[in-house]
């Protein structure tokens, strides 16, 4: 039962991930990416990582995908614009490097055994993550807020500029 479910989800994940890069229309690529993220969330659930699964849906499938859509809109791609790799040399270079990475991955994970002990399903629950994060990992947790603060100030500084017009600089109030 579990194996069948896994194979089903894994199949959908791989196919939708492939469609992300095969589709020429950027918006439909993005929508397949959402599907990929959902499938990944289901795989996380099967591994007992419910918190990660929830984050995958809330942050990635939700918030990050909004950014993707905005970027597609900002770039103002016309439907007729096609991005293609030209020339057989480049195609083979791409194919070769992909095969190389696959080979390295296979070699790296070849010796990996599946865990012999029973899977500890309590480790991925929200409460056990809370326990670890707010006790052993207090410092990284607080640094995360500094990171977010830097992101807020950085993005506002980059996008909402002072006007270039020199006469308004003295006044100071702007935007």
């Amino acid at each position, binding site marked *: 039962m579990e194996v069948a479910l896994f194979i089903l989800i894994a199949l959908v994940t791989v196919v939708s991930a492939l469609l992300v890069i095969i589709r020429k229309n950027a918006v439909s690529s993005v929508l397949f990416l959402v599907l990929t993220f959902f499938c990944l969330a289901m795989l996380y*659930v099967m591994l007992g990582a419910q918190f990660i699964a929830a984050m995958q849906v809330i942050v990635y499938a939700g918030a990050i995908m909004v950014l993707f859509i905005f970027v597609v*809109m900002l770039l103002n791609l016309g*439907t007729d614009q096609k991005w293609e790799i030209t020339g057989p040399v480049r195609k083979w270079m791409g194919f070769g490097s992909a095969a190389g990475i696959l080979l390295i991955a296979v070699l790296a994970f070849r010796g990996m055994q599946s865990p012999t002990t029973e899977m500890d399903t309590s480790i991925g629950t*929200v*409460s056990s993550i809370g326990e670890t994060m707010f006790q052993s990992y207090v410092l990284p947790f607080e640094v995360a807020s*500094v990171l977010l603060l830097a992101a*807020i100030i950085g*993005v506002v500084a980059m996008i909402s500029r002072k006007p270039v017009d020199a006469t308004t600089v003295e006044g100071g109030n702007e935007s």
Partner: protein
Amino acid sequence: MIDYFPVLLLMVIVAFMAAALLAITTFIGPKRTNPDKELPFETGNLPTPGNARAQFSVHYYLVAILFVVFDVEVAFLYPWAVQFKQLGLFGLIEMLVFLFILFIGWLFIIRRGVLEWK
């Protein structure tokens, strides 16, 4: 694994309901159309002429990024809320520090007028 069976059941029911509602309206609903009814509905305005993919103002993107930042902030609140009683006063203080630092960010956004639409 079996704990997630209700979730699966819910997803199946939702999918079934969505499909069923579409099917029912398609088969039972009367189809009397005229050109005005065929227009795409865009909040009562006339449809955008030409390509729907007009270029957005970068301001939308700014708002979206700020949304992501605060979405991530909220993500930290879930495990904290679940463990609230066990963590006690220490947990409260550390979350207040976390929220204070992000509150500074919020104050900065408001005072800079980033969310004001011109």
